[in-house]
Every structure is written in C-alpha cells, then in structure tokens.
C-alpha cells in the first residue's frame, strides 16, 4: 500500500521537477531541477527493487554528468541577457515537432493499460550479484557492444580534443 503512495508521490515529484527544468529561465536552476528529477527516478528504481541501478543512476547522472553540465553552464555564464532570440518560425516548428512526439507516445501507450510488475516476487533480483550474472551470461553480447560503443565515443572525444592532427 505504502509503495503505491510512494509511487504517486515520486511520479508527481519527477513530473513537477521535469516541468521546472523546462520552465525555469535560469539554466543553472534547470540543471538543479534536473538533478532533483534524477533523484525522483532513482526512488522509482528503489521501488522496483533495483538498488544497484538506483545507486549507479545517482553516481553517474547526478554525480558526474550533471556536474559536467553545471560546469559548462557556469563557464559559459548563460543568463537571460545572453539567451539567443528565437524566431517565431522556429518556435512554431518546435511546437509541431514536440506535439507530434506527444501524439506518438500517447498512441503507443494507449493500449498498454496495465504493465505487470516483473520482479516484485523476488526482492533480490536487482542486487549486484544477480545483475552481474545476467549481464555476463544472457546479455553478454549487448553488454560488450555497449562497451565498444562507449570506447568509440571516448576515442572520438579524444580526437576532437586534440589541437591538431597530423
């Protein structure tokens, strides 16, 4: 029972902070609201018995990626004055694009009325041992492919960061 209430509470927080990310004028505030959104989502992970995922979510997203975002925004010193003025045409096209995305989402989720919870019966399914076993046996190929993807991204970043390539 309490998990249901927690679910609604966390969802409310996640949606509210998500809206605040979009609505706040100051980019720094946006980033901080995004961090709070991540916290709400980490709470959802905990409700789904995925503690490892929750912890990694906090460490990687809130602890590292958002710090880098904040870092860049602070360095650029963005504020209301430096915000580029967007033309009406751009605004209209953005509205159309996001509106059609919304329609796609609604259409996709319309029939999925009740998603069954897969792992409520086994509270240990999200623990690191089980996750590791699954990752290195059933999902070995996707796991390694993902690591190669990350390696490729890293090499690309190093290449971009180099001043000149001979």
């Amino acid at each position, binding site marked *: 029972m309490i998990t249901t209430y927690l679910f609604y509470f966390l969802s409310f927080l996640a949606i509210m902070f998500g809206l605040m990310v979009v609505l706040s004028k100051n980019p720094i505030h946006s980033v901080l609201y995004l961090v709070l959104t991540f916290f709400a989502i980490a709470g959802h992970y905990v409700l789904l018995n995925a503690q490892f995922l929750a912890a990694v979510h906090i460490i990687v997203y809130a602890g590292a990626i958002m*710090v880098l975002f904040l870092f860049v925004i602070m360095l650029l010193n963005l504020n209301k004055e430096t915000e580029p003025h967007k033309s009406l045409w751009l605004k209209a096209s953005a509205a159309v694009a996001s509106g059609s995305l919304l329609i796609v989402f609604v259409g996709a989720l319309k029939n999925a009325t009740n998603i069954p919870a897969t792992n409520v019966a086994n509270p240990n399914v999200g623990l*690191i041992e089980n996750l590791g076993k699954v990752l290195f046996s059933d999902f070995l190929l996707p796991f390694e492919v993902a690591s190669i993807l990350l390696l490729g991204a890293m090499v690309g970043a190093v290449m971009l960061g180099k001043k000149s390539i001979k």
Partner: protein
Amino acid sequence: MVLTPIIFKIILVLCVFGITLLVATYSTYAERKIAAFLQDRIGPDRAGPFGILQPLADAVKMFMKEEMIPTVSNKWLFILGPALALLTACMTGVVIPWGKSLIIGGHEYSLQITDLNIGILYLFGVVSLGVYGIMIGGWASNNKYSLLGGIRASSQMISYEVAMGLSIIALVMTTGTLSLKDIAAAQHGGHWNFFIQPLGCLIFIICAFAETNRAPFDLAECETELIGGYHTEYSSMKLGFFLFAEYINMFISSAVIATFYFGGYNMPFVGRFVHDPNWLAVLGIVFMFAKISFGIFFFMWVRWTIPRFRYDQLMNLGWKVLIPLSILNIVVTGVFMMRHEIMAYFVK
C-alpha cells in the same frame, strides 16, 4: 519490546550525528595544534587548559559574526550551498560499521546504522553529490574567484572519483561484497586489506585527499590564488558550515579508509584476553576511533608538510597516473585471483 530496536536505532543515529559534529569541532582545534607543533609553535592555549575550549570560542565567534549575503548573489542558492555541503557530509556516516554488535538482554544490536548491501555504492553516490554544495556556493556568490574555486572543485572531484572507484573495484574483487559490514568483518584476525591491496590503498588515500579538498589538493580554496575560493563571499555560520563539512568529510574519509583497508573495528591480540562480546564491541569502537584519529592526524600531517599542486599537475596525476595505476591494480588482482585457472589452462 518491538519498539526497542527502533529506540536503539534512534539513539545510535543521534550518537553518530553528535559524535560526528563533536569530532569535527575538535578537528579544528587539532588542526591548529598539530599545525603549531609541526612548526615549532604551541598553538591556541588561552581558552581553558591547553586551549581545550578553543572550539567553543570559535563556534561562538562564528555564530555572532555578521551575516552577509551579497546583493548581487542568488540568495536561495547562496544559502543552499553550505547547507548541501553539510548535509552530504553528514549522510555518509550512516553505512559505516562503528563496531561489532552489542548484546543486551539476549538481543543483538548492530553498531551500524544501516547495513546496505550496496554500501560502497551509497558512499560513492553521496560523495559524488558533495561537490554540488561547493559548486552552487561558488556560483551563487557571483564572484569570479568563487566561481573559479567551484569549477576547480568540481573538475577535481570528478577526475579523482574515477580513480577512487577503480581502486575500490579491486577491493570489491578480493572481498566479494559491497557491504561495509562484511568488508570489516572479513578483516578479522589481522587480515587487513592493506596487506592484500597496498597499491589500491595508496590510490584510495590519495583520492580521499582530493575528494575532501584537503592539501595538497586544496585548489578549490587556495588562498594565494583565489582569496578563499568558493567560500570567499561567505561569512558567519554559513562559512562555518563549509569548514565544518570539510572536517566531517575528513572524519568520514578516515573512517572509510580504516574500514576498507585497516581492519575497521578489528583489533590485534585483544581477542585473546577479552572474551565478553559486549566488552569486545566497546573495545572495537575504541580501536576504530583510534584508527580514525590517526587518519585525521595523517590528513593534517600531510597538509602541513606537502605544498599545493599546480592545477595541471593535479590533472596529470589524476588522469595519467592514478587511473592507469588503478586499472593495472585491477588487472593484477584479477590475474592473481584466477592464477589457478590460468595455470591449469597452460599446464593442462
């Protein structure tokens, strides 16, 4: 009777919180005394015998000072910064096993507030959030020195978190658990992880220095370049919060280092003479705090010995030395753990 464990937990939480604050308070005194002694001085000795009441005087001073909030600053974030710094500093004490279990009236009461099965990840999560306080404080001050301090702190913490995590992975490989309680218990009988993972221990300690923004990695607040760094604009108790957070971080880091690598509450030889489990638990707490005290002393000893890094040296050390070393450590540990299988493969 159902309520007793809850009451015990509440008492434990309050004790840990109180002791954390007390240790942080007296760390300021210890810092000044140790700095003085290392420099052939005496240090504060006016307030009370040997200056033992100096932290109280400092606290009164901190509370009484004028509260300043710069008019051009972002007021809410300006207040949020030190609050976050202190909050994240206090949150880490939850998963540390301060001692073995006490047995009162046939019931076992653990001296760890909560034993998370992902304790190490929890620690990392909280530590990685610790940078927000400094960053927000530095940015909200609307001062270029504060901003530079905040930016330095964030890039430094992100860089050293990587090496810290990699050094811990080797430890997790040998211990096979992420729970701090199990890690501490596995070191019973002098099997300290330090002897198994000396390189990992060294890397972890260096990264702990960097994560707590202590010298020689205190670039975020280096006086000679950035006035006070991220706390340039802060005054009164908000400054006190930042300083307090630093000392609490130091205390918790010492506790974590002691738990991970130096046996935690385990003590050598005492088990042969003392057999009562409650006395053993109490002695374990004493030993734990002795190790923590030495850790704090080591932090201060290093601070007053080694000069500050230059920023490029800091980044070189983090990315080009510590991370390759810790990866090497992981590989060597893995090879050592799998040596029988590897030998079997080649020998057949």
